[in-house]
């Protein structure tokens, strides 16, 4: 058998789960250390996680590449593979392919103000970028983080989020969808937080990650603030099976024939505004 096949793109790298923690009823955080060299990902990329004998699922990396040694995945028990993954813990092995996909355009963001808008599980891929920015804080202008979730119990990375909240170099706001007796903060949809943010549109990148339904409304708010279309960055959700722009599952109904796994998952609004759906 030739070298090409033995090292083909289907070959899996072995990842050891070095820590695992249930975050909410449906989300679990895994810390994975790869055998051999590092994952070497960039914020916004994803990996294919293989549970041998069960199957593979695409999961975005939620840790920043600035934090070396291992990487982290937030896994929501949504399908067959992810539900099974919740039964895994420290000491278990998984197969890893990747990293795949186009990362957030961090180089282009240098010297600009950043407005992060995360809804629900969208905080996971965005956390990779937020921590990257925090670790390279000098390179960027003003940073605003807007976070929305259904209930306080659904909030992910609570302690870390509290840390962001305390930082002087980051502005942070959070809202929950419905009132809750234990909640003293904002109540309402995430769009309600945007008008209150001071924005210098020419020098701002708006990075939005959340469920498909959220995009339309958040983008409308950012456009109202006159942020240029190519400075509004989204990360789209599709079922990325092969990660190589071939299997067809993640193709977006868009004139440009985008494969979410290869041309995305991060896109500028300018790139994907012609898509039938986000």
């Amino acid at each position: 058998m030739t070298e090409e096949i033995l090292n083909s793109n289907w070959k899996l790298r072995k990842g050891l789960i070095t820590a695992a923690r249930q975050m909410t009823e449906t989300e679990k955080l895994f810390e994975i250390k790869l055998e051999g060299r590092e994952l070497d990902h960039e914020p916004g990329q994803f990996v294919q996680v293989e549970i041998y004998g069960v199957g593979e699922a695409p999961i975005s990396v939620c840790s920043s590449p600035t934090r070396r040694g291992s990487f982290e995945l937030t896994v929501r028990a949504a399908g067959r593979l992810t539900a099974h993954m919740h039964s895994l813990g420290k000491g278990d092995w998984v197969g890893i392919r990747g990293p795949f996909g186009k990362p957030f355009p961090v180089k282009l963001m240098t010297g600009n103000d950043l407005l992060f808008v995360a809804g629900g599980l969208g905080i996971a891929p965005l956390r990779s970028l937020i921590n990257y920015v925090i670790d390279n804080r000098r390179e960027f202008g003003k940073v605003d983080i807007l976070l929305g979730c259904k209930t306080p119990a659904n909030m992910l990375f609570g302690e870390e989020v509290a840390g962001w909240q305390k930082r002087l170099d980051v502005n942070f706001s959070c809202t929950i969808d419905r009132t809750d007796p234990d909640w003293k903060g904002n109540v309402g949809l995430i769009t309600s937080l945007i008008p209150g943010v001071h924005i210098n549109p020419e020098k701002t990148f708006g990075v939005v990650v959340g469920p498909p339904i959220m995009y339309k409304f958040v983008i409308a708010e950012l456009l109202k603030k006159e942020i240029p279309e190519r400075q509004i960055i989204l990360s789209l959700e599709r079922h990325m099976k092969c990660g190589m722009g071939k299997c067809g599952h993640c193709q977006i109904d868009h004139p440009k024939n985008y494969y979410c796994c290869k041309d995305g998952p991060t896109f500028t609004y300018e790139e994907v505004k012609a898509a039938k759906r986000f």
Partner: protein
Amino acid sequence: MNYHILKKSELDWFIKKLSRKMKVCAPVAKGHGSFAFKEVKSAGEIALSYIPTILPPKKYFMPPREKLLDFDLSGGKPSDTAYLEAVKTALFGVHTCDLAGIQCLNMVFAERPRDYNYLLRKESIFIIGLECNAYCDGYASCALVGNHNPNGGYDLFFTDLGDRFILHVGTQKGEELAEGLGLARAVPADMVALAGVRETKKAVFRNEIGVGLRNLPGILAGSVDSEVWKDLGERCVSCGNCTNVCPTCYCFDMADTINLDMKTGSRNRSWDSCQFESFAAVAGGENFRAERAERQRHRFYRKFKYPLNKFYRSFCTGCGRCTRTCMAKISLKDTLKALAAG
């Protein structure tokens, strides 16, 4: 490149010689006007005059089910080995539409990141084309996409000249085979006969829909919300026949199988279809092409719009298989005509 001559009476000798070197697969009649590529040992088994086979020759390049990895979980840490099965094979009698189909797949799988399972298997296949001197049936639309004449993609290419075949050599490998078998070189009279065949074809093969290929991307771009898709959606069975039989449909799924020892198993890929309801669904419950109409539109876009921009060629080869196989009478030609009519 050279031209050689093979008398029709020598075809059986040719096939037998070839099958001593490698597995030979060719179109074989299955009854009820259906054909399939199958292994043959003699010319008598081959249907020289055939309409496109049920499955196109893509089944030899990307098998319907293919093992990618073997894994073993018996140790603490899992281990896996990549797998490739590529049997040296000659495909005999491949029509020009299917040659075009293979060319399309070659482009897709050679694009980075490359798919070595496909690319290495491709290297183990020797391709012998066969010219269509007339239409196979009324479903074909090969002239629309310019595939009624050969455009490369073969090692050897056969054209029927009545009592003999003229063989065009497409590759060095093809030349070595023809030379090795001591096939006679074509003489000027043969070349005249070949030119005659091509000249006759000009009058026979005409753009089947009366709309130019280069206009189709624009027509499709303007018909995103066309009623035509709604009509297709109401009729479609979502059986995936159209994509399974398409020479350029390559979408796939991947899944693991574990053996009964519960310790060893394999990772496999199999053909998938964008026409299945779950194809574009994500784990959270969202389905990005839940409607049959959207899925049919997607299929047409993937033949006549996306690839024309990306690969500068149509991914419809004009073979007519999708229309021929559709139980619900969804016709590719009629659909394009309806879209062009607005």
